[in-house]
């Protein structure tokens, strides 16, 4: 019985359980007239029965399926010839790959060794047994749950409360997904990063100035594990983010000021969504724009001025990233400016200040903490942005403050190190996780500070 059919069966069984529970509750109440004696609605008894029938069965189903393949593989392997079992890890993986392909019907039987063919036959046999026993087990669990609850149904059974408690736990589980996600991120990244730091010392990674991660072709090639000094990447990331902020902060801030304080309502209603379109454009589009339009234009401009501009200059990536970030800065600044109470402005006008003086000396000063928070969020956005820099910034780890040269960033290196098939334990792939850890920590820190500042500021005027 294939898993999908079994799943449908579980669902059908739950529907049946619902009907059984409902009918049973009406029966114990003594027909439809006796329903008023029941603690809960008949439907609640049905739902309770369905939950106790379907949920355990589903749990067994999922746990079994997640382990089935590994267990069967291990069993099959233990029956294979001794020389196969003692093969080194990489060759064993090849044999297993053949086995899987043969089982899936991707390759013909005559293309693999006889031992593998025998193993595949055994695999199929074990798989059939496993699926059959799973079906039996799941159905037994489901029916047992059904019968158990059915036997317990009495007019004073608090079915609704029991059912609602389960739902509440499920809702709690939904919100706990967020915590598990964070936990998953931290665990997976930290785990791999620690393995990296076992090979490359932390101090070399954080303070080293030479970045050239060569792939070790064999495990015993110590010399080719490359240099993993990440400082050039940090410098490149900061340079590009800095250029982006030089573009985004003035334009974003001034357009927020204009739209909040000067523009008539009609204009604001048109222009604000137009600017926010920039935030909705996918980042690969910006990347493409940077590569095909901004980069070449900068090079032509540089040539006419006699300046050497690299094909993948930090300036092009930074400019385009700045354009992307404008709406973040402007909408956050707009929120903060409109949150400043009108009474402060009225006070300034009464003292004879012009509008711009009011804005500069009163409104902006009052809104400053919020705006700083917004800018911090924008910086964290710029540091974590990937596609634009992958497409428009280079790969060469130059340590330079010259925006016309090519630099590389943390995110570019993560992508370059991990795209394509790689072994999980080479320092090259592990380095990507170490970079990911740095990225995660820095953006997290910026966000925590920014959210704290913004919240403090909001409370001030509420």
């Amino acid at each position, binding site marked *: 019985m294939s898993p999908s059919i079994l799943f449908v069966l579980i669902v059908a069984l739950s529907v049946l359980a619902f009907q059984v529970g409902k009918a049973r509750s009406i029966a114990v109440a003594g027909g439809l007239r006796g329903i008023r004696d029941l603690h809960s609605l008949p439907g609640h008894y049905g739902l309770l029965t369905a939950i106790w029938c379907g949920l355990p069965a589903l749990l067994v189903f999922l746990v079994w399926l997640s382990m089935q*393949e*590994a267990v069967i593989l291990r069993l099959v392997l233990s029956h294979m010839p001794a020389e196969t079992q003692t093969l080194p890890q990489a060759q064993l993986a090849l044999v297993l790959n053949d086995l899987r392909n043969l089982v899936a019907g991707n390759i013909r039987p005559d293309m693999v060794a006889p031992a593998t063919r025998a193993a595949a036959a055994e695999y199929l046999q074990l798989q059939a047994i496993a699926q059959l026993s799973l079906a039996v087990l799941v159905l037994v669990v489901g029916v047992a749950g059904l019968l158990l609850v059915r036997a317990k149904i009495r007019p004073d059974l608090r079915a*609704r409360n029991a059912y*609602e408690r389960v*739902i509440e736990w499920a*809702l709690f589980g*939904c*919100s*706990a*997904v*967020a*915590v598990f*996600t*964070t936990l998953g*991120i931290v665990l*997976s990244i930290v785990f791999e990063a620690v393995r990296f730091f076992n090979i490359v010392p932390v101090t070399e990674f954080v303070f080293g100035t030479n970045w050239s991660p060569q792939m070790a072709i064999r495990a015993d090639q110590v010399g080719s594990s490359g240099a993993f000094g990440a400082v050039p990447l940090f410098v490149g990331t900061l340079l590009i983010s800095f250029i982006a902020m030089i573009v985004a902060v*003035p*334009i*974003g801030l*001034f*357009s927020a*000021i*204009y739209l909040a*304080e*000067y523009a008539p309502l009609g204009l604001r209603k048109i*222009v604000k969504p*137009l*600017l926010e379109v*920039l935030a*909705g*454009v*996918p*980042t*690969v*589009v910006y*990347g*493409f724009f940077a*590569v*095909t*339009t901004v980069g070449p234009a900068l090079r032509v401009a540089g040539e006419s001025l006699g300046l050497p501009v690299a094909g993948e200059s930090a300036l092009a990536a930074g400019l385009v990233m700045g354009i992307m970030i*404008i709406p973040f800065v*402007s909408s956050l600044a707009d929120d903060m400016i409109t949150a400043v109470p009108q009474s402060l402005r009225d006070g300034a006008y009464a003292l004879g200040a*012009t*509008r*711009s003086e009011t804005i*500069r000396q009163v409104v902006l000063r009052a809104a400053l903490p919020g705006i700083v928070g917004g800018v911090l*969020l924008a910086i964290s956005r710029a540091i*974590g942005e*990937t*596609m634009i820099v*992958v497409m428009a910034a280079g790969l060469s780890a130059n340590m330079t403050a010259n925006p016309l040269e090519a630099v590389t960033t943390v*995110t570019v290196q993560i*992508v370059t190190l*991990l*795209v394509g098939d790689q072994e999980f334990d080479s320092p090259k792939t592990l380095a990507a996780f170490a970079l990911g850890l740095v990225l*995660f920590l820095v*953006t*997290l820190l910026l*966000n*925590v500070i920014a959210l704290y500042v913004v919240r403090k500021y909001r409370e001030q005027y509420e």
Partner: protein
Amino acid sequence: MSNTNNVAERSAKETQSLVQASLARRYRAERRFRAYGLAAVLAGIGFVVFLFGTIFSQGLSVFQQSYVKLTIQYDSETIDPSGARNPDDLVTADYQALIRAALRERFPTVEGRPNLRELYALVSSAASIELQRRVVEDPTVIGQRETLWLLADDTVDMLLKDKVSRTAAEDERRLSDQQIGWIDELVREDRLALRFNRAFFSNGDSRDPEQAGVRGALIGSALTLLITLLLSFPIGVGAAVYLEEFAPCNRITDIIEVNINNLAAVPSIVFGLLGLAMFIGVFGLPRSAPLVGGFVLTLLTLPTIIIASRAALKAVPPSIREAALGMGASRLQMVGHHVLPLAMPGMLTGAIIGMARALGESAPLLMIGMVAFIVEVPAGVVDPATALPVQVFLWSDLPERGFVERTSGAIIVLLGFLLVMNATAVVLRNKFEKRW
């Protein structure tokens, strides 16, 4: 007394004259400040216009493609010399030869290998696949003549669309003077023309620009988004309902809330690392599969959906809740029967916006390997696939001139979908938004 009055009067006058003197300067500063603001707004709008203008001017031409009209003789000697109509023979026959014959027939004066090779290069290699399809579908055409529009090569296409220069030195062009002469001749005879580009929407990826299409990427994106929607909407709404309606005020709730806010700002590539290490590394799920992509994008969009759903729940006035509870409903009944239906439009809006974000996302998909060159259109959620934004990324890297146009075309398709999704969200919000 009068003395102090005088002093006050004098100082007031002084102040006044000081103010008067500075007024012009202050008004200038005011105008300047205002001009800065206007300039910033104009710059922002300018960027929007420039960005979209560039993309559309480069990409709109993708919806048309050059086709060449040839009279094909389905020569039975070439296709099926045995005459048995064996399907295997029909598939492997040399259809390129039919096209070559048709070209020689049209240009009988061309002689010599190099010249002929230049002539044959005008037609795409996909044209022979089209002929093969026709013959396999209906073997009775063998032995007959048929006039067909066949796909031209991408170099011809670029010339017809004026995307390459005719006047550059001959060795800097991909077309020789002789070839351009033939092309002009064909165009004059209406045998070479731009027609609607069906291949762009019906083909998967290809190394030849004229054959490359977005169908594979579109299906891959659709499968990924389907998984994302199926997981993130129920979980997101569940989490929002718990936090707004059930959660007690305690440490655990606080931790969850802080967590969600922080997750919303974690760079998307970090989610890709999680997907690579967890779903592929630990759970052993297949690489490049929309299933894993859907999982990763679910985690990525959850914070957006939770935050939007909570806002929608907050907008439902407490009086509704009190009325339901007052009538004897349990908390869950109150939420399920009254609060959720009222908050649903807002939640759906949030979900659509979250999906739009997921559709445009590519960095985490690179991490989990949805970045391979895949010709086949994926049929299920565990088949290797790519997604629309990743396709844009892949094409943008290719050197052929034709792929710049394809990339822009794929971007236009992507932006079109985003526009539809966001417009739906706005319409939904305007239609169902209630002011209590």
